[in-house]
């Protein structure tokens, strides 16, 4: 999946789950300051991402990376990384 495809699917989650307007969902948008998400939303965001991209967030492994996410583009990067890791996993 390309970064563009990932970005579109993340955008769809943001619109459907968090009722955000599409036009403000630029890659540099800050999740907390600009998009108004909070700690409860971050829980729901992880669940939505897991469902949409068919991966599992592993608490010990991914926790710091999740916490470091600030902008929309950080989510895109995190998903790309997860996908790469999944491709490297034995089938």
């Amino acid at each position, binding site marked *: 999946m390309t970064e563009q495809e990932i970005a579109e699917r993340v955008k769809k989650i943001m619109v459907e789950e*968090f*009722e955000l307007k599409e036009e403000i969902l630029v890659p540099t948008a800050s999740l907390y300051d600009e998009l*108004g998400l*909070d700690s*409860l*939303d971050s*829980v*729901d965001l992880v*669940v939505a991402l897991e*469902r949409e991209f068919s991966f599992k967030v592993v608490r010990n492994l991914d926790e710091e990376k999740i916490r470091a996410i600030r902008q929309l583009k950080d989510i895109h990067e995190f998903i790309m990384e997860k996908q790469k890791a999944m491709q490297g996993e034995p089938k």
Partner: protein
Amino acid sequence: MASVKVVITGVGAVSPFGIGFPRMMDALYAGSSAVVSLKEQWENEVKGLNCWVGAPLKERLPSQEIPRQYRRTMGPTALMAVFAAKEAIAGAGIPHAVFSNGRTGVSFSSTTGSAASLTAYFKEYFEGAFVKNVSSGGFFQVMSHTCAANIAHFLNIRGRVISPDAACSSSAQAIGMGYEAIKYGIQDMMLCGGADELNAIVCGSFDLLNATSCRYNGTPNETPRPFDRDRDGTVCGEGAGCVVLESEESALARGASILAEVAGFSTSSDGSHLAQPHSASIAQCMREALASAHMAPEKVDYISAHATGTLLGDAAEAQAIHEVFGGGRPAVSSLKGHMGHTLGASGVLELSASFKMMNDGILIPTLNLKTPGEGCEDIDHVTELRKCRINAFAKNSFAFGGINSVIIIKRYGADND
């Protein structure tokens, strides 16, 4: 301890008749019934019910009016509560700054946080012993103080938040505890009330205790029948009600319209049985409420009965009223014939309707009461719209768990003598 006079300055209602206090009053005055058949809907949700009627909210709540960050923690019960609170505070004309001054609180409750949200929550769990897919708002929708907490959050209220969950007596207790918080000078203003949603599982809980009406599934308008010879149980409804309680000093200082005065309150336990009504302890609770109001029984002109249409409960209440007040007076009616039993909301919805009746000088009769049943005969039933002057009334509210609550309301400015 010095006590403060407590008045009511705002009212809001989400009733089976729709959104808004005026809509509820119009339907009550018109003698309408909100009870309908729910067989088609419930048959897919639950098996083995005997009662297939209920009094659901007739319209959808415009939930999108509540911003997402507030709405996500509200199940249907809390949503109805917030809409009732919004109407009450708008009517009371309360400046928004008052909410965060620490002297304004919330006393609001329900039987459960939300039957629908609980079902969704545990469906996830039972299907995979897994709760990961429950949304982060799920817990806040099902917690027992969801109404009080969500109202406080939505309005940025900083005072005390109380949720005296007591099933069908929830809102009566909530009003009583809000009243006491103001009476003893702890708060200046309290948003008080209760809510509950209608759900097949809620009806099922009453059904398994043989407390529901099941002979009128084909003629829903004819049930429940409080105090009537042919009553056969209660009918569950849903809704939310909110009253703004305020110290007289606060209300006068801001030039608020005063709708009524809360004169007294008592709540007590049967101490004998969790489900079976107990006439003597109902009578005792009414006496204690009168004592709290420093009011003689003969000064009470009307009783808004709890009477849900059950065989034992209505008779126990009628006998208790007769014991405390004697025969002939005061006038008695139950509004459950119109709205069904709105459970945690019933106390506040019926109390609110009653002070409107008091201020209008008209009593609304008990719908579906044709011939009083055995044990219910010796009180003055209102069987048609009755014009009369009411200076004070009692609101009775009882609940499973052996809970009794009685609130005494009087016309603002009326003497107790």
